[in-house]
Structures are given as C-alpha cells and as structure tokens.
C-alpha cells in the first residue's frame, strides 16, 4: 500500500475521481473499474493523462479497462511502457 505524496498516479486518481472524499481505503488492489470510480468516460481521461504525463503515445496505450483495474495495474503498465518515468 502506497499512500505517500510521492505517488503521482494515486494522487491523480484521488484528485480527479475522488475529490473531497475519504480516500484512505484506496489500496493498490482496490478495483477502480468494478466500483465505477473510473467509468468509461473517466478511462478516457485517465489514458490521456498517462499519455501526457509519461510521454507515452496514446496509440501505445491499451484501451481495455482491464489494464487499469487497480493502482497496481496502472503502475505496472506505466513502468513497462515508460521505464524512465517511474
């Protein structure tokens, strides 16, 4: 579980999808898709943020929700696609 301020992915999710809410329960394995915290529209925003933040071309980013189910999934994808960034 990672809750420090040095976790930009988590910070982004909290700021963008859980603004003003208690995010203490947001663990690395919390299912963002199943819980609808990230819905289909949110997924589009998330992908574009990843693309911009980590310099990964949008075309290289898979669109299926399963790739972003949890914080751990997103982190794993980013570290594989842009190893220098994380």
């Amino acid at each position: 579980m990672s809750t420090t301020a040095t976790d930009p992915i988590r910070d982004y999710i909290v700021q963008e999808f859980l603004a003003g809410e208690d995010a203490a329960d947001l663990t690395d394995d919390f299912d963002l898709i199943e819980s609808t915290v990230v819905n289909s529209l949110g997924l589009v925003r998330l992908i574009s943020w990843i693309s911009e933040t980590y310099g990964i071309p949008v075309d290289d980013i898979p669109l299926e929700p399963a790739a972003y189910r949890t914080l751990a999934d997103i982190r794993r994808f980013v570290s594989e696609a842009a190893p220098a960034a994380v």
Partner: protein
Amino acid sequence: MPSPRLLQAFSRHVQEDPGRTALVAGGARVSYADLEQLARRTAADLDAVDRTDVRALCVPAHKSPETIALLLAAWRRGINTLVPSPGLGAAALATLTAQAHGPLTAVAVPGGGAILSREESDPALADGFSAPDPEESLLTLTTSGSTGVPKLVPIRTDAFDRFGDWATEKFGLDADARSLSFSPLNFDLALLDVWTVLEAGGTVVLADAGASGDAAYLRALTSDNDVTLVQGVPLLHRLLAADGARYPSVRTVVFTGESVSEQGLRDTFAACPAARFHNVFGCTETNDSFIEDIDPDAFVHPLPIGAPIEGTEAVLLIEGPDGTEVLQGPGTGELLVHTPFQTCGYLEQARNAHAFMPDPRGGGAMFYRTGDLVHRDADGRHFLQGRTDFQVKVRGVRTNTLEVETVLGAHPDVVEACVVALPCPEAGTRLHAEVVRRDGTSLSSLGLRAYAAKHLPRHAVPSSVALAGTPLPKTPTGKPDRNSIKKTRLNGDT
C-alpha cells in the same frame, strides 16, 4: 379529527374520564381535564380579540400540549386554522397567512393561552386564493413546496371523519391506544397519531421536535410509555429498532413516507414482536390511499404499497398512441386516486386544474394526479416506482434517483441517503449521493461505491459520494431537501 365530531368526543372524554392521560410531553402527563383547562384559557384569549374579519387563524405547529389546546379552542369557535411548519421564515409565514385570507396569527404560550398578532399584508397576495370555509374545513395543512412557498390544502371535516372511522377500525384504536407522535404537528400523519387517537380517548406521546434523530431518547419514550402505535418514515423505525431494542407493548406499526429496506423491515419485526405491520401510502391532498398489510413470515421486498383503501379508486395513466389513456391490467403508469378522505382542492384555484381531473374513465369523481409512478402486477398489487419527476437520464439511460437512494439506504451502515442529479460536462447528468452513516461505523465512500456497484447498474452508481455524520437537510415535511443539497453541491463545485 379536526371536526365537530372530534370536539364532541373530546368533551365526552373530559367528562367521563377526566384523569386519563391525553398527552405525554416533556416528561409530564397532561390529563384530558388538564387539556380542557388549557383549551379554555386559550379560548379566553381568542375571545378577547375582534375576529369579525378572520377567515383563517395561522397557528405555527410548535409541538406542545398548548398548541394542541389552541387548535381545539379555535375549532370549537368554528375558526379554520392554518397550521404551517414552525420552521418557516417570517416572510413565508406572512405570505401563507395572507394567501389563506388570515389575518390573525396565534402562538400558544406555556401554561395555556395564546399571543395573537395581526399581519398587515398586501391584499393582492390573496388574489386567486379561495378563503377557507369553516363549515367545510377547520384545518388547512401545507404540503412541502420542494420549490418555493408551500401549497395550502384545506382538510374537509367530513373527509376527516371518514378517515377517523377507517383508521379507528383498521388499527383497532380505543382508549387504550398510546401513539408515538414522531412527525411534526403540521404533517398529515398527525391526523392519525394525534387527532384520531385523541378522538378515541387514547394517549398521544409527543416526541420532542428537536430530538427526532436521538435514538436513545425515542427508545426510552416508546418503552417508558408503553406505546401501542408507531407510525413514521423508515428512519424512525430504524432508530427505534437499533441495538436490539424490544417493544412488547407495540400493537401497530405503520411504515409511511418512503420505502423501507429489507433489513429495516426485519429489524422492526424483531423489535415489535406483538405488532401488526402496515405499509401505508398517501399524500396530504388525498390522505391515505393504499395499504399493504405485511406478513412478517411471508413478505415481498420491495414492499408493495398494496391495494386501494376501501372507498378509494385508483387508475394508472399511460401515454398511448392516441395520447393519455387508462392502463388496463398489469403495467406501470402515473397513479391517479380518488379517496374518501381527500381535499376539495388547493386554496390556490389555478393549481387545481393541473392537479385534479375528472375520472378519466368517465364519471364525475375528482381524481388527484399524484405524480407517482406506480407498477401494478397481475395480482392487482401496486408498487411505487418513484416520482414521475425523479426520472433522470444518465448517459442516456433512464434512471430513477429514488431507486438509487433505496439501494444505498439498504446498506446496514447507512442511516439515510439522498441522491441528486447534477449537470456534468461529459455525461450531461451525473448522480451525486449524500449519505449519513451510522455512528461508530467505518463505512467509507469507497466502500459504499463498491456496494452500490454490486447492487446497481453501472449508470446508476453515483459518481460521487459524500459521507456525513449529521442528518441531511430536510424539507418542512421531513424529506431530504434535494434542492438544497443540489444547490450546495453546485455552488461548491464551481
């Protein structure tokens, strides 16, 4: 009931059994003789003012024996009383009083008596409003304006007597009845739990208006006074049933106002082992119109609103190929009812053409358009689907915010939930939930989202959840004030 018959029955109880307890309030017992004395003191104050131009007496519904005595005294003098929420602001009160052709306001004082004041207001405010006719009605109630000033609904005396007859028989009310009066005096629920019980010679236990969310207080009040009749919204039943409390004295439980969760039902069954359970459906304009007698051993959930009360006629209106038509057989449509208990119409004449219409099947009876979306199954049971105006579209999918509330409210750690539709730049409309969690639970907004996602289609899962420890803002009739919640959210969002 606010009718000559109630007044006669009350006087009879005073004569025949003066020492019997009429009211319990603030820990003190008020006997029928005490209440009579309070009413006489108040009558003296009413007689001390010139009442020649008085068409309606505004009595803010402060919940006290003195206010009840004030109403009895006014009715004895043939005065129609307008009974609004005491929480209304001065400007709204003045407008309502003017609309009802006032111009007197009376506030009961401790120990009996009333302070009367005369409102000078613009007579034009009463344009288009009928004056209440005391021959026809002694009581004018208000319905929640979720928008703007409440609507004025005169309650007919004969309609009240018919309601009293029905309720007395249906719930077996007599001098041994002891009701818990939880809702404010200006609610139509008081017609049963205050006025019909007094007419029967029973005892009314007045729950303090300020303590309505205090479970420990309500539990003690109910236990200590051997209450037999509990009527109220699911929140009341939930508070009473908390922590495994038991009420062997309760004989009748009436659910009303909103849909109750399955767990809430089971908890109440356990809390009141000797009771009969009813789901009652109605509104201020028609009073009760549907009832479902609930069998704890064989009930369905969500609870049906049941079948029309004896004497009530109900039709469902649907949009057919040639316009509006009456639904035959099973299906879903807007509920229209005609009850033996209904009002003769709003004082504001212009409202009536939209709210009331002649029997759509032909015939002269006036039907009230409830605005409620109701499903009728093949067995003739009716189920409330929500308000016709609570339908919103979320990402193109028709969604009923009340259904979402019901699902959130069914979470064991949720005390109350309110869901509003907010504008969303991406989706057009998104759902936002305000939720009050039970004290001491660790329910988080993420936990609740996960729960909602399990029980709702994706489009219906609120996209934001705010958890609070304090009760939600309420309308004058005790329902969550969705407009206020929405406004706060919108202003906070921008």
